[in-house]
């Protein structure tokens, strides 16, 4: 009944549903893999791939996320389960919170699975900076999830929703793309360093949009 318990219950439902079918995860992983491989065909030398790798990695994640986040609220329309959720929770923010935490987990899982493949294809050393990489992956994915979950609720109520979500989401996530790429590139540099400004920036992005979602979420679900 409290926000925490409602969020936990909903998070559990999202995770249980996904791990039962694994359809979202498998298709997302394969999609990102495909994008990473295709991008690698466009490079000549290994120094080029090292330079462009981080940006393309994040671009691949963004594209994948904009596809993966579509079913988020669309699923709830099939049997009108969204109405059931709205009737059962005290604070509608719990619905968003449960979903965005689940989406962050799915994105992070996809990214961690693909990181070794990326390292091999693009000749980048990830082991020495693995901890920091996970941090930037987490902060970036969180930002993507927050914005994506919110906009998924918008696009579910419009026409052409398959195209609409990427259209709305990708420009909005430009700051995440820029900052995450920068931090990742710094970590994968021959002389790796931690771009603290970037990490702070990502945290600010996440906070701003989480707050916006908290303030306006209930209106997104209005009938």
């Amino acid at each position, binding site marked *: *009944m409290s926000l925490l*318990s409602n969020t936990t219950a909903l998070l559990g*439902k999202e995770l249980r549903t996904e791990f039962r*079918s694994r359809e979202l995860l498998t298709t997302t992983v394969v999609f990102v893999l495909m994008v990473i491989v295709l991008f690698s065909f466009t490079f000549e030398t290994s120094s080029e791939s090292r330079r462009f790798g981080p940006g393309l990695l994040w671009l691949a994640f963004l594209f994948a996320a904009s596809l993966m986040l579509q079913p988020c609220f669309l699923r709830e329309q099939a049997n*009108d389960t969204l*109405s*059931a959720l709205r*009737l059962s929770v005290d604070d509608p923010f719990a619905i968003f919170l449960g979903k965005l935490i689940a989406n962050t987990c799915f994105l992070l899982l996809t990214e961690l699975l693909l990181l070794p493949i990326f390292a091999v294809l693009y000749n980048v050393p990830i082991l020495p900076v693995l901890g920091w990489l996970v941090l930037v992956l987490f902060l970036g994915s969180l930002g993507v999830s927050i914005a994506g979950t919110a906009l998924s609720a918008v696009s579910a109520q419009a026409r052409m929703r398959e195209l609409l979500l990427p259209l709305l989401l990708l420009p909005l996530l430009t700051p995440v793309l820029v900052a995450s790429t920068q931090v990742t590139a710094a970590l994968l540099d021959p002389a790796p360093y931690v771009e603290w400004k970037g990490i702070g920036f990502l945290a600010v992005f996440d906070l701003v949009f989480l707050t916006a979602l908290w303030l306006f979420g209930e209106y997104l679900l*209005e*009938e």
Partner: protein
Amino acid sequence: MNPPGIVAAGLHFENIGKRYGSLFALRHVTLEIASGDCVVLAGRNGSGKTTLLRIAAGLSRPSSGSLKFSSAASCTKDGQVKTGFVAHATMVYDELTAEENLLLFAKLQGIPNAHGRVQLLLADVDLADRRDSLVRTFSRGMRQRMAIARALLREPSILLLDEPATGLDPHGAAWLAGTLRRLRDGGCTMLMSLHGESEVSAMATRAVRLDTGKVVADTASGASLKSILTFADA
């Protein structure tokens, strides 16, 4: 079905209007439903029955007018009357089992002893042996029973049903009628939309007909139940 602790409650629609753009779904609807009443809403498709029910359930906000609940006792959840809603759609997850579905909603609603309550409800709706089956595998009748079980989780004082008998075979319809009768006798106030006469409509204490968003006939003002249900123009 319901423990004797159900709290009687009524609801009052005061000049309710609802519009979507330039379309009026409801216009100047004023209806007083006393506690314990079993009211049937009749009307063609698009007459506003679903909209009125969704407003009563709290899913939709009226464009104008207000909705008030009245309750006899003071022991309601935070002073709010508990309602249950059975919609056209089942409002349960296909990818979860019957038990998982009810447990999820019970936990969300903060129902004490959720596990026990869920087992009780599953037994009441005759789905105990299918508790571990995914709802996806259920027949229409079984899904309807799931929907009702979900609506009854918090022991509502007011039950709202939107065409609950649609798609049910005679056996299912008989089960539904029996269940609703027991609830009504237990003190639950009911507002349901129906098409035509049936076993379910037979237990109504009152009927109201809507047409293009307005109340056009009401047994409370003398119209006959039969005429309202069968769309015969008075």
